[in-house]
């Protein structure tokens, strides 16, 4: 049975992991490879590295970092943050990333999804959608959640699927950083429309929230950052709770 995935997300700045609340008060949290190894050992099913480095020169360190991660980590990982071009995607995939996550760039240039998925296959193209609620609908935001595009999130998600995205990383901006739980209604609506996997993101505060995202929201995977970074939720305990709730989940170490 296909297992539901637990995905810790690591924010990367200038080649280092940073921890912060809502992108404020960023603190250095050490070497990404070390943290990634720890998560992998604890049973993470996949990892997402989100580069929040501002300058282009410093972004070059990202490819080197991806090479280091790929040497050490034997589970799949996605890299995202500021990727705009097919050749940037190629560099990251050749360095050993399994998937790339595209966000602002595909809103500005939707054809990028077609070009990238034709060149490398849909399986490695993750469309990241930051959605904010307005009444009964959701609007797509870009540039780290600072700019409203005016696009309807559900329509946009259908479009990225048609253009060849292989997976949706769906972040509820209303819930992100609140620890009040995922936006289950948004998750359900997205799942009703698409035929590709959906990763729930934004709002995880405890184990129950993650179970809810899968059981009620129909999420294929659950992504979170701070609950894992600050060790509020252990991956092992989370997986055991999934199992107790009859959610198929992968255990390592031959048990």
């Amino acid at each position, binding site marked *: 049975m*296909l297992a539901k995935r637990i995905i810790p997300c690591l924010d990367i700045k200038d080649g280092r992991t940073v921890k912060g609340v809502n992108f404020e008060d960023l603190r250095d949290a050490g070497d990404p490879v070390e943290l990634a190894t720890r998560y992998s050992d604890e049973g993470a099913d996949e990892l997402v590295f989100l580069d929040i480095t501002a300058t282009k020169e410093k972004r070059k360190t990202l490819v080197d970092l991806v090479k280091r991660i790929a040497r050490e980590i034997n589970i799949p990982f996605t890299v995202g943050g500021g990727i705009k071009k097919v050749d940037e995607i190629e560099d990251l995939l050749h360095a050993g990333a399994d998937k790339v996550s595209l966000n602002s760039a595909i809103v500005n240039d939707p054809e990028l999804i077609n070009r990238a998925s034709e060149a490398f296959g849909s399986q490695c193209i993750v469309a990241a959608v930051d959605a904010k609620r307005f009444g009964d609908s959701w609007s797509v935001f870009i540039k780290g959640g600072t700019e409203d595009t005016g696009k309807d999130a559900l329509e946009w998600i259908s479009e990225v699927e048609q253009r060849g995205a292989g997976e949706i990383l769906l972040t509820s901006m209303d819930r992100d950083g609140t620890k009040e739980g995922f936006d289950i209604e948004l998750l359900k609506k997205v799942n009703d429309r698409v035929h590709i*996997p959906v990763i729930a993101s934004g709002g995880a505060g405890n184990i129950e929230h993650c179970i809810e995202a899968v059981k009620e929201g129909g999420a294929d995977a659950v992504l979170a950052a701070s609950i894992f970074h600050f060790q509020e939720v252990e991956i092992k305990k989370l997986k055991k709770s999934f199992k107790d709730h009859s959610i198929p989940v992968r255990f390592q170490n031959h048990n």
Partner: protein
Amino acid sequence: MIAIINYDAGNLASVSNALDRLDEPYIISNDPQELELSDAVIFPGVGHAVPAMKSLKRRGLDRFLKETDKPVLGICLGMQLLFESSEEGDTKGLGIIPGKLKKFDESKGKVPHMGWNTFTDTVDCPLLNGISNSQYFYYVHSFYAPVNEYSLASCNYINDFSAVVGKDNVLGVQFHPEKSGTTGSLLLQNFLEHVHGRASKVKKSAL
């Protein structure tokens, strides 16, 4: 020495990193003559069947794969290309293993099949030594090989399909052992042990 076939469709970094982690020496090559010098061949693959087959043919690698008696391990698309044909681009494969690749029915579940899944109906074989039906491997694919007489293990997603296949010297796995944590490393280790056991036997008989 293991050779990893380079034909523009492989996720070479992942496979070579996995062999590095197992301290196994290897070459990466697209030259059939160079491949002849290896003890075994890993045939990786990510992407689309049509350009992959074209790339193999352009370099004469299709003939090498069909004719070699060295152990071959096809991974993901590499495994799929071992079959006769695929619905993907309606292309012909290498035809080493009988059968046709089909696309998952999108009306019955999400496609691609992406994530960690287990086996059933496992046939006892060296590749699966110490690996049980409760262990998970990482899959990413939209096309599948139906279960047939060459299936060594099957997986269920939307329908049953071949997770592991074997015929003569050729083995194939639909999942990515190089991305499947410690369980995946164990499977690659099993393949290497199978190869080295065989390589030392060949050397002895040559004496």
